[in-house]
């Protein structure tokens, strides 16, 4: 039996330190509250213990006391609320200069790929001092990407992309856990996050050769799946050209507009009729549901992104970066309740 008794997790990011401060504040308030309540009960229990047949006079209550002990705790709780919300909002939006990493959860492993084409399983390598944005997808059930040393966690819900980000500050090797119960080997869906000095990270990237960058892998898929026969480089194909599409605002035949972000591209591959760009016919493109893995879709997304991006006027590069826009494609589900042709 391991006799170590660690009582505090390591803190390896900015946000981890913030969360530790909040935790200490919450704990102190709780301890003070508990001592007050338990102390008063203890004193009453001793001081007013039954001595004989005395029958004490009732005290019916006091509006002033009731108001006091409702308002004061509520004001204290509002400080919890405010501080927690502040951290939550800071944490929700990745900075624009974030480094991209992609991870797919699958019963029961984490597959990780980097824009340079490197891939690994149950391992994540990141440098310190740079915001890292992880785009998460699930191949099957709900998983949850949890790195305790960074105090961050995000569910990975099948059917759309989830985004999390962090800024690591302390090199080391830390646990990566799946936090959402996902079946038989849930407790085996664990791995390690290696946080490295930037130079070590560059060496690591260089030492892990790959068959081309993620964009190049995506381009090969684009050819293999026959996408290129319709989505030609010029504008003569049966489908729209994808050059310069990423991040632009698309006019849909339904009259709506949509920003061509990761979620839109993913949906257009799996359920092409959900949002058809104006000037093109529905029911031309087949659904690729079941024919391509989530990893492959991510490669295609990166490839399409590499074909050039446009910043739609008034639109951020990805809808996911808007506070409040969460990347969930409920609108698409509502627009297309049958989920496309199966």
């Amino acid at each position, binding site marked *: 039996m391991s006799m170590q008794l660690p009582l505090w997790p390591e803190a390896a990011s900015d946000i981890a330190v913030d969360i530790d401060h909040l935790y200490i504040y919450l704990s102190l308030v709780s301890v003070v509250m508990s001592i007050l309540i338990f102390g008063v009960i203890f004193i009453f229990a001793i001081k007013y213990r039954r001595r004989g047949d005395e029958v004490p006079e009732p005290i019916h209550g006091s509006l002033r006391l009731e108001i006091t002990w409702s308002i004061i705790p509520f004001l204290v709780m509002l400080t919890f609320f405010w501080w927690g919300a502040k951290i939550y909002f800071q944490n929700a939006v990745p900075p624009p200069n974030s480094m991209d990493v992609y991870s797919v959860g699958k019963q029961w492993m984490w597959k990780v790929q980097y824009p340079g084409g490197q891939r690994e399983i149950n391992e994540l390598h990141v440098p310190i001092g740079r915001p890292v944005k992880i785009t998460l997808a699930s191949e099957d059930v*709900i998983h949850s990407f949890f790195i305790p040393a960074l105090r*961050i966690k995000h*569910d990975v819900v099948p059917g759309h992309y989830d985004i999390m980000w962090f800024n690591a500050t302390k090199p080391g090797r830390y646990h990566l856990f799946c936090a959402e119960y996902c079946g038989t080997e849930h407790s085996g869906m664990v791995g390690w996050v290696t946080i490295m000095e930037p130079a070590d990270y560059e060496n690591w990237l260089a030492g892990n050769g790959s068959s081309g960058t993620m964009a190049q892998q995506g381009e090969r898929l684009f050819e293999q799946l026959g996408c290129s026969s319709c989505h030609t480089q010029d504008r003569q194909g049966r489908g729209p050209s994808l050059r310069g599409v990423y991040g632009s605002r698309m006019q849909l035949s339904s009259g709506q507009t949509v920003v061509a972000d990761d979620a839109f591209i993913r949906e257009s591959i799996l359920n092409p009729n959900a949002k058809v760009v104006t000037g093109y016919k529905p029911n031309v493109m087949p659904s690729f549901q079941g024919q391509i893995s989530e990893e492959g879709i991510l490669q295609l997304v990166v490839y399409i992104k590499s074909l050039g991006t446009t910043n739609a006027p008034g639109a951020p590069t990805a809808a996911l970066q808007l506070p409040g826009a969460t990347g969930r494609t409920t609108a698409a589900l509502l627009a297309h309740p049958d989920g496309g042709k199966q």
Partner: protein
Amino acid sequence: MSTALQEPQTETVNYLNAEYGWKSWLFTTDHKRIAVLYLISISVMFALGGVFAGLIRTELLTPEGDLFNSDTYNKVFTMHGVVMIFFFLIPSIPATFGNFLVPMMIGAKDLAFPRINLLSWYIYIAGALFALAAIVMGGVDTGWTFYTPFSTTYSNTFVITAAVGVFIAGFSSILTGLNFIVTVHKMRAPGMTWGRLPLFVWANYATALIQVLGTPVVAITLALVGLERAFHIGIFDPAIGGDPILFQHMFWFYSHPAVYIMILPGMGVISELVTCFSRKGVFGYSFIAGSSLGIAIIGFLVWGHHMFVTGMSMYAGLYFSLLTMFVAVPSAIKVFNWTATMFRGSISYETPMLYAFGFIGLFTIGGLTGLFLGTLGMDVHLTDTYFVVAHFHYVMVGGMVLAYMGALHFWWPKITGRLYPDGWGKFSALLVFVGFNLTFFPQFILGYMGQPRRYHAYAPEFQVLNVMSTAGASVLGVGFLIPLIYLLWSLRYGKPAGNNPWGAKGLEWTTQSPPTTFNFDETPIVTEEAYAYAKHEETHVG
């Protein structure tokens, strides 16, 4: 003084011996006999859930998954949750003590619908049989939360059987709630105004509102899970056009209020215990009663706090976090009023009062740690870890089960007519308190360290805290076994209790112990407020 207040000289006619034979029990419409049927049934389920808990803690003694394989472990924690929540905690106090006491406390002969009351027990048994069948056939491994699309598409276990069990048991809960609402509205004795209702009745009334309004939602949700699993209708599984998060919204819309179904009746018990053992009227009657209704209403508006890391809108997160802070206020009001009730009281420390002290302490810790989880940024780190496990066990076991044990020890003399040995009662209450804290306090630390819940095997550095937890669970188990022994012993060898062994107020204590089939020889007329300990004359009868 009426004849009902005199000590019975010999074995008098009461609800237990009025009729004999199994038919007299299985076809009874007496709320007290139905309460006893429920008491036996849920005790069996509690024991079963406890065995599963013991298996979980034994496996977690070592970091490696060495006692069971992963599939078995996953089934064990699932069945622990399903059995404890749907077949013990939800029916626990309303179906047993509520059933027994609500009519007696308001001066009625029975509930408004005695046959529906019996029907609810049969429905409960039918649901329990489905759950047991799911266990016997091979178990379920979805967790008690049945999250999709795992439950609808990926699990290879008896999900539909278990879901049908929970679905059926829900109707028993709805019928009990319906019965209580009508009874409290229509069956109160003359003079028993709303302002004179015992707080236990208020708590059960608030609970009944949630049971009636909330339970249909979980029934629909589980029906959809079953339909999707059987016919792939595409509600929850994104591969066929569904939305897995929709399930979570629907599930928690019931299951968060269900937490209040579990705790509100316990709070009602504590109000009775604190007044009786302080021999003093309650402080802030209308605030304790009103806070039960407040919890029932606001409790319906906070479900999203289970979903802060699912990718739900940040602004929805703000709303749910704020409302979660809000719902904590009425709980705090209760704790403060119980404390104030003890002020200048005449406090004695019999077994039920020890459980009441335990409840206030553990529920306070459970409530405060709930605020950690309602705080947005904090929850991101803590959710789905052992911190959550510790938090809800402080509320559900430290709160509800201690209240249940307090109620059992308080009203046992009324239900059975016998006294149990108070020394053993105090000793086991102490064991439960110590064992409980040793089991669950280390889990707060484990959670902050990052140990995820529902893990069959865990990282080696978490072992010491897990060993403490398992040791505590052993003490806790003994603490629950001892009452089982002395309470059964008391049925035969316990001293006759007399009508009112605690000197308590309340109409139920004016009847003989055990009461007659129709509770009161004559309908009582109530002329005083609840807990009028300072008044020396007895409640007028006749």
